């Protein structure tokens, strides 16, 4: 019971961070109709920004969120404007050549990082890295002992707050509504006066900014090396599929499910099996729930 609850807590905390990574990819997927396979590499860039800010100037990684996100936002805009858009215009034999382009961008970023920063593993040794709250500190005769890691919790809270801000932006502001409208029906959005081209650029920037923030939240609890991007691209991809392509709420649930499932596999099957669990859930989702969480949510809403 104790280890189950502890695993569940760890899973939810990890899931919240995964959700933030997944949402960025999902947003881009919704508006552009392409999977951004450089997503994890963008996160790696965000992590390096947080790392160097910490190593050079001693800036706390959590503060780097406000530095890395804007930088990644503009990097995303640059990628969309000068790399993806020109490729959109080209008639090619490959219909998905923008996806292949993102693979290339990812490789360039990963190799640039290797050349510039070497392939050493790095981390930010923050003072609170091992700090934790224990249930027995607050409840003397607690029947079970649970702990809550300080950096994991802070990262989770940050992820929830950022997701909340994003939700507010997408559902309450005109620009946010325009992004959703563009994802749902591009021509209709154009007729409503939405500058669709600009929305594409803004969305790519937003997706990159979000994953940059996720990078800053990950570095206090993780380690960093140039080729880590591929792993997180895959995670984001699984979440996007699990959530139902293009659905933000679906991505939040997808992230949580993946986080919980991974930490369950790690506890009950073995540490090394967590990636197996990840892809098991991916295959299961593709076979039994091809529409993702979004299709479940929709069914429920229809029944109401």
């Amino acid at each position, binding site marked *: 019971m104790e280890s189950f609850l502890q695993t569940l807590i760890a899973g939810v905390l990890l899931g919240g961070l995964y959700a933030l990574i997944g949402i960025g990819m999902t947003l881009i997927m919704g508006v552009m109709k392409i999977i951004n396979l450089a997503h994890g590499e963008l996160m790696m860039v965000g992590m390096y920004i947080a790392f160097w800010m910490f190593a050079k100037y001693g800036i706390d990684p959590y503060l780097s969120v406000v530095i890395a996100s804007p930088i990644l936002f503009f990097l995303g805009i640059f990628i969309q404007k000068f790399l993806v858009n020109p490729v959109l215009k080209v008639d090619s034999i490959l219909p998905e050549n923008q996806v292949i382009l993102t693979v290339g961008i990812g490789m360039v970023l990963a190799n640039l990082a290797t050349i510039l920063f070497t392939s050493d593993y790095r981390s930010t040794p923050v003072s609170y890295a091992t700090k934790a709250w224990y249930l027995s500190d607050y409840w003397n005769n607690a029947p079970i002992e649970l702990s809550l890691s300080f950096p994991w919790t802070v990262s989770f809270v940050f992820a929830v707050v950022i997701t909340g801000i994003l939700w507010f932006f997408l559902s309450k502001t*005109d620009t946010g509504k325009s992004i*959703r*409208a563009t994802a749902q*029906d591009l021509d*209709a*959005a*154009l007729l*409503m*006066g939405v500058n669709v081209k600009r929305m594409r650029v803004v969305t790519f920037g937003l997706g990159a900014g979000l994953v940059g923030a996720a990078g800053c939240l990950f570095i206090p609890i993780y380690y960093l090396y140039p080729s880590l991007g591929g792993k997180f691209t895959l995670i984001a991809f699984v979440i996007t599929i699990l959530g139902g392509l293009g659905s933000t709420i679906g991505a939040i649930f997808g992230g949580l499910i993946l986080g919980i499932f991974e930490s369950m596999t790690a506890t009950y099957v073995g540490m090394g099996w967590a990636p197996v669990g990840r892809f098991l859930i991916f295959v299961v989702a593709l076979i039994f729930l091809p529409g993702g969480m979004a299709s479940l949510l929709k069914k429920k809403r*229809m029944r109401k």
Partner: protein
Amino acid sequence: MLAIKNIDVSYGDVQVIWDLSFEVRQGEVLALVGANGAGKSTTLKTISGILRPKRGEILFENQPIHTVEPFRLIEMGIAHVPEARRLFVEMTVEENLDMGSLKGEARKDRAATKEIVFNLFPRLRERQYQLTGTLSGGEQQMVAIARGLMAKPKLLMLDEPSLGLAPILVREIFNVINRIRQEGMTILIVEQNVKQTLAAADRAYVLENGRSILEGSGTELSNNPHVQAAYLGV
């Protein structure tokens, strides 16, 4: 107000509009009628900039608009209610209406216009927080027209508003069109439902195979032998 001058329009190599000219005058209801594939919807898409004419020009209030970026047209005063409604189905009725009023004056008057629109379609007031994907076809069409009205356009273009609706709803939609016109809005309507459209329109053009073959007032065309034989089944 709107002048179409000798436009040719093609989808790739297939030309669908041939040397089409017509004009919409201030305050009138102008109808383009014709069968499937006559080029009616293509004409509206060309006006709103989704398609571009290969030849000819389109003037709105004496300014050429066939070179203007399509997303600027709604601000200039042209609202297009597209065929098959094209709502944002995963947004609520209210959010769809907000999408209709993103720019300029319309944005400032959003709350007031919404009130007017809800008075025109009381059913939408009841449904304002519902996702439009869950509405019936008739209600969806109302949202589509309402979304167009939210832009406070000078010219409202309606593409097949009666498509796929039960006769009683068709009558309701045409009643609304009459009420909008009494407010002084200029309307360009495209329809296959020729009889009701000619009754509602001040003037109409008959399109066949991408060419305009007849023009006249609604009553003139209703009495025209060709129109009667081809579209009214008389």
